């Protein structure tokens, strides 16, 4: 494509202004990120020393609890699945999400699925300093959002 210098200048200035336009999102009440025009909000949020996050916990026949890896909980990359877990509770308290996770585990990890008795969607709160400086990996608090029971194809559902 051939541009005259004037056309090239107009094209350049327009594209630059468009690229920089998301800067306004920093000062609006409800900022909205987009693609490919972003205001790059990552790492700009204040974090407290205790951090809460959603995840899935499985309980086996011996009563042992294990965290279910993100790859068994959703589709896409790590952060994408993390967001899917965060939003799960908004859809019928998270039960359809747990059901889907159980289905994925049965397909990808049948051995693990055979041992599981239930899946829980929880929100755990952790002290960052304790977790990383003192290797204390237990949550300060773990709140159950939803439980999905896996028992001989008979699925009992409990909402918290």
């Amino acid at each position, binding site marked *: *494509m*051939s*541009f005259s*210098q004037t056309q*090239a*200048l107009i*094209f*350049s200035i327009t*594209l*630059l202004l468009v*690229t*920089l336009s998301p*800067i306004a999102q*920093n*000062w609006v009440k409800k900022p909205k*990120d*987009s*693609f*490919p*025009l*972003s*205001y*790059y*909000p*990552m*790492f*700009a*949020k*204040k*974090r407290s*020393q205790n*951090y809460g*996050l959603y*995840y899935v916990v499985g309980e086996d026949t011996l009563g042992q609890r294990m*965290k279910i*890896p*993100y*790859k068994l*909980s*959703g*589709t*896409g*990359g*790590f*952060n*994408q*699945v*993390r*967001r*899917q*877990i965060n*939003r799960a509770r908004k*859809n019928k308290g998270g039960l*359809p999400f747990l059901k889907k996770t159980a289905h994925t585990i049965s397909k990808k990890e049948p051995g693990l699925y055979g041992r599981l008795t239930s899946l829980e969607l929880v929100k755990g709160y*952790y002290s*960052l300093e304790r*977790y*990383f*400086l003192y290797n204390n*990996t237990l949550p300060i608090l773990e709140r159950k959002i939803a439980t999905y029971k896996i028992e001989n194809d008979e699925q009992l559902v409990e909402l918290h």
Partner: protein
Amino acid sequence: MNNLWNSIKKSWFAPVDPKRLAILRIATGSFCLWYLLSRFDMLQRMTQNTDAFEAIGILSWMEKPLNEIMFWWISIAMIILNICYILGWRFKLTGPVFAISALLFFTYRNSWSMIYHNRNALVLHIIILGFVAAADAWSVDAWRNQQNKRRSTDAHWRYGWPIMLVCAVTVGSYFLSGVAKIAGDLAWEWANGSAMRSQIAVDAIRKSILGAETAPFFNVIYKHKWLFLLMGLFTFIVELGAPLALYKKRWGKLWAFLTWCMHWGIYFIMGITFRYQMTGLIFLSFFAPEKSFTNARKKVANKTDGSLAPSTTHDLSPIILFDGVCNLCNGWVRFVMRNERKREFRFASLQSDTAEKMLRPFTVKNNMGSIVLIEGDILYEKSEAVLLILGKLKHLWPMLSAFIIVPKLIRDSIYNFIAKHRYGWFGRQQSCGLVDPEDKVRMIES
């Protein structure tokens, strides 16, 4: 004010070698193609999770995702368009079509609950390159134009401004990131490192709890608070100081290097792989990568030196100097003679007085170990000479000249290896082996 405007205009429209723009086209296209191929299955799986669909950007109007089969075909079409973009085939059409398709495709890909900011720059770069003359060199179109002598490929402002724009867009995205940090809740806490430390810890705990791979160096550095002070300051300088990279070329290169280091730092500390950034492809526009393929190796004759051979001063047709006693070299010369498009080459053996005279104005030694191509006042050696000669032959041989994109170190290592063993493998003669009367006509040695 006028002076400022003129100097901006002068640097924005500075003449640049079209090969630089071509390298950006090939680099962005290759990265995008790698992404499409390596993520093909994942993307198909991802789009089956219709619950997670939340259209953003230019696709905000979409209420439902596309059906799986349609997305599969779109992915295939993207790959085909991507290949056309890399090859520079009918670029006036395929360039803009691919640019728009990439915008739509990546917006759609980011409409599944998470925006991946590391693709923003790639898409913006492709949008710029797809709409400009990025296929005037190292492309199918350029090869066709060369055959028809339609367009010269000398340095021109038409290749300069898109590169400046790519640089400006890159710089702009980092600047925006810096502004978001100041304008956000953390504000200047970022500069003292405490904000960065807590951000990194949050990222690490997410990965630890959700079973993702954690960063290699996180545990080592988390306890050293002072390190975060340095890293916080460094991040601020790199992001908020980004616009300075446009002021001077040297500053641009330094900024690109520092930002590249920052991304590797992010990888080691947070385990986040910004591939377009970490490979350095995002920063290519701040450098002159084409020089590592051509300029660095060409040697220009000293025009004040009166010792140029008459044949080079009066006739500008290319001259090939070769080792006349080497069977491989003689075979190569016969091959060139048989496959020339226009019988334009002339030849002389490196052992001849003519060759010695011709090489005198150039800063090269006649060591018999390299084939030499002289075009006007420019001399090419070794693999570059071979590839440029191949570019002037008929049939499909010019396609091999695309290997010019392989770094010189690798190409010349292969060349040197063959050159070193050429007598052992192919034999040698006592004198120049080109004795056919037909061949001798093309020889210019005395």
